[in-house]
């Protein structure tokens, strides 16, 4: 008998109605019930019940899950799929032997490089050299497609420990810099801080903060995720803050779940809950009253980052902000809440499905006729930017909402 790794009561909340099926990007692509949320929960329960081993087939289908949690939005009975998935992945990583390639990729590249900004910087050095020498075309296919995800301009930047509000201050807010954000999208962090300052907030960015732990949690390394959580909770406990602001949806969804992650740790449970209660995505914190349309608005559309709309249930606020700035030039994107295939490190571990979803997303963007696509997560930005480039859609720009709003606000 396999030791229980799933909370049975959570798994039993799935009444097998199937309403989640067509919200699932992988099911839409493969048509295979094993690649659907209902199917995966069935597999998880079969593993837990000892009917299936932690074998190649079920693991393949769990691996293929993006963790986008669109199924949670669709689910009428409130199944906490994200939690079930993380528990299952934790179990898989402990009991399933992976290929050397996947082990190196998961344990070394994803978990020991990306969560550390300086390591990511170092890792990206060769990319810069190759690009400078124009030798990137000589790499093998898989490496080239990974490389395509790295933006052409890397803007690394760290924020000062404290920035003062412009005009009269309403109070202090904490700011989470993110790992990928500060290395690849430093300018976006600048824009975010700038928007908060204009909105009347002092922006506090504690030096001691680190990775939010999302990459560990999604990859089935819950203990490591908990270590990250403890570090961040401690880092932000020093100053009284009105809120802790995050501008990356993927990190945000993990930060708001610290309470759940540390619920069994008596020393940290309450502190984690208090921390999570303060975490706010940038878009929910900004007051849209200050956003004004400009005369020369381009046609703009909005892509819902899964970890904002599905994991955190935030979809109206960003639209309101974008619409306010865009005047009448906003168009809805077909399948706007369908994952773009980025899904954290997914485009490294499951490149084929990631590319299928990238193509689907980019086609929808092109069909919308928009010249700007706004989103709220670095992973989505990288994925969509590289997809647009592959499709030759040079007329469309993908931008983070902070950069989009900052340009014209006020």
């Amino acid at each position, binding site marked *: 008998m396999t030791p229980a790794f799933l909370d049975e009561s959570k798994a039993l909340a799935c*009444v097998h109605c*199937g*309403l989640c099926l067509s919200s699932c990007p992988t099911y839409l692509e493969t048509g295979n*019930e094993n690649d659907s949320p209902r199917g995966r929960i069935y597999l998880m329960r079969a593993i837990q019940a000892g009917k299936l081993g932690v074998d190649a087939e079920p693991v393949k289908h769990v691996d293929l899950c993006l963790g986008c949690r669109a199924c949670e939005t*669709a689910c*009428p*009975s409130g199944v906490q799929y994200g939690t079930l998935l993380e528990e299952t992945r934790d179990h898989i990583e402990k009991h399933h032997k992976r290929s050397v390639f996947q082990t190196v990729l998961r344990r070394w590249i994803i978990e020991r490089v990306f969560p550390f900004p300086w390591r990511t910087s170092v890792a990206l050095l060769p990319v810069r050299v190759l690009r400078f020498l124009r030798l990137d075309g000589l790499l093998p296919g898989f490496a080239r497609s990974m490389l395509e995800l790295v933006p052409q301009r890397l803007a690394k930047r760290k924020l000062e420990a404290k920035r003062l509000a412009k005009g009269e201050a309403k109070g202090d807010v904490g700011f989470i810099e993110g790992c990928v954000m500060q290395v690849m999208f430093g300018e976006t962090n600048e824009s975010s801080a700038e928007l908060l300052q204009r909105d009347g907030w002092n922006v506090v960015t504690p030096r001691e903060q680190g990775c939010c732990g999302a990459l560990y949690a999604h990859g089935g390394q819950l203990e490591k995720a908990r270590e990250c959580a403890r570090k961040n909770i401690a880092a932000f406990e020093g100053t009284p803050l009105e809120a802790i602001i995050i501008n990356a949806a993927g990190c945000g969804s993990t930060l708001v779940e610290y309470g759940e992650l540390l619920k069994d740790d008596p020393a940290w449970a309450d502190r984690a809950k208090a921390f999570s209660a303060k975490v706010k995505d940038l878009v929910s914190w900004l007051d849209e009253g200050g956003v004004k349309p400009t005369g020369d608005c381009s046609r703009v559309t909005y892509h819902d980052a899964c970890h904002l709309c599905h994991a955190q249930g935030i979809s109206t606020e960003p639209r309101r902000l974008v619409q306010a700035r865009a005047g009448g030039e906003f168009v809805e994107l077909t399948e706007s809440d369908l994952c773009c295939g980025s899904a954290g490190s997914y485009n490294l571990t499951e490149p084929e499905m990631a590319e299928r979803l990238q193509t689907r997303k980019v086609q929808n963007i092109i069909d919308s006729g928009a010249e700007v696509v706004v989103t709220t997560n670095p992973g989505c930005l990288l994925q969509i930017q590289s997809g647009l480039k592959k499709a030759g859609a040079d007329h469309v720009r993908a931008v983070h909402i902070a950069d989009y709003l900052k340009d014209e606000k006020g």
Partner: protein
Amino acid sequence: MRWIQTIPPDVKPSLQKTMVDRLASVVGRDAVISQESELVVYECDAYTMQKNLPTAVVLPATVEEVVQVVRVCNELGLPIIPRGAGTSLSGSVLAVDGGVMIALTRMNRILNIDVRNRRALVEAGCVNAWITREASPHGLFFAPDPSSQPACTIGGNIATNSGGPHTLKNGVTTNHVLGYEIVLPDGSLKWLGVGPDGGEDVEGYDLRGAAIGSEGMFGVVTRALVRLVKTPASFKTFLAVFDSVDQASHTVSDIIAAGIVPAALEMMDQVITRALEEAYKVGFPLDAGAVLIVELDGLPGGVEHQAKQVEAICAKNNAREVRLAKDDAERAALWKCRKRAFGAVGRLSPNYVTQDGVVPRSKVPTIMQFIREVSEKHQLRIPNVFHAGDGNIHPLILFDERDPDQVKRALLAGDEILTKCVELGGSVTGEHGIGAEKIDFMEKQFTKDDLEAMKKLRAVFDPDQRCNPHKMFPGAKRCAEFAQKKQVAV
């Protein structure tokens, strides 16, 4: 591991490698599922009381592939089971005795929206709600709206002649499918009803209605030509709150008696409204005995007039409150709740079985009283959410499959309720179908001659009874463990 059925040796999937190879040569290796570890998710649909593994599942991508798969199965004498999203609530796509499941989930495209002729050509695996999504910019929609519409497929809608809350005014699937393409069990391809390219007349006999509602026993539907209707010019959607189910039931009868045909007329009792309120926080009163959703649609003048009548009828029946959805967002929120009511029950209980009985509208209060008695007798909670306007009840019997005694009581309660529906002059299914679940009721509802006539019609399409076998008809072969499963079901 009590929750998963152990597969007895006699129905263990035994598809030989050569058979897998033959299927794979048609659809490709990645489109054939034949390992037990991957078949397990196909052992049941949304009806989880009975489970059995299919021999294989194939995922064809084109009509031609479906034809070839059916021919291979024909040659090998294998049963075929057409499957869409597997949202059936009556075990319609249960592989009772194994067989090859043909899942149409890769054939899910909308091929054409013909705005001028108000119709759409879609593949059978197309999701119901997608048609309206694509048609709505043109001011059109696809009317049949089962609660599972965000996931269920047109092929499945045709198989069960699906209805939905708006059936009352708009009719069911058969009223909105002009024609369809079907692969018969011998592998021949036929188009029944209005053709995709011509006018709306049918050459020869109009056999369209024959396979609609045949529960996948006549062949595999691959494409359908569906009717699109104009989106109504205005809506008024009320939420009427009552202290008791009886008051709400009488209101339903009075509205219909007044000659009003609302677009929808839905009832939810207290347990359901509480579960929904917990899930969606739309402001349902927690202490109400029952609520009605009454939707009127049409030209603004007429809707206005009827709205006044409906309000008066509600008041006469002592409605505690009648709320009007003030905008599209509120209206959408109400419908979202209603359509997700079954699933929301997952918050109350690990398992439920949905019954789908029909009674004459005037007998709604009687059957509701009876359900309360059954609930008390078997000590099971039985909340109700249903299409009150057409007397189509959906009692949800809550149980925990880990407790065999509860399972037994749940099955008994369901039997008693459906038997009562027949006694009251109704039927044992409004829209979910007979499937594997309600076979025992066929003889209660139909005479021998009725059943013979149905079997004769089926024999025209499927003389060997290889297409979705062991469904609907009493006396169909059942696996030895079938009855035993019904008792234990875990």
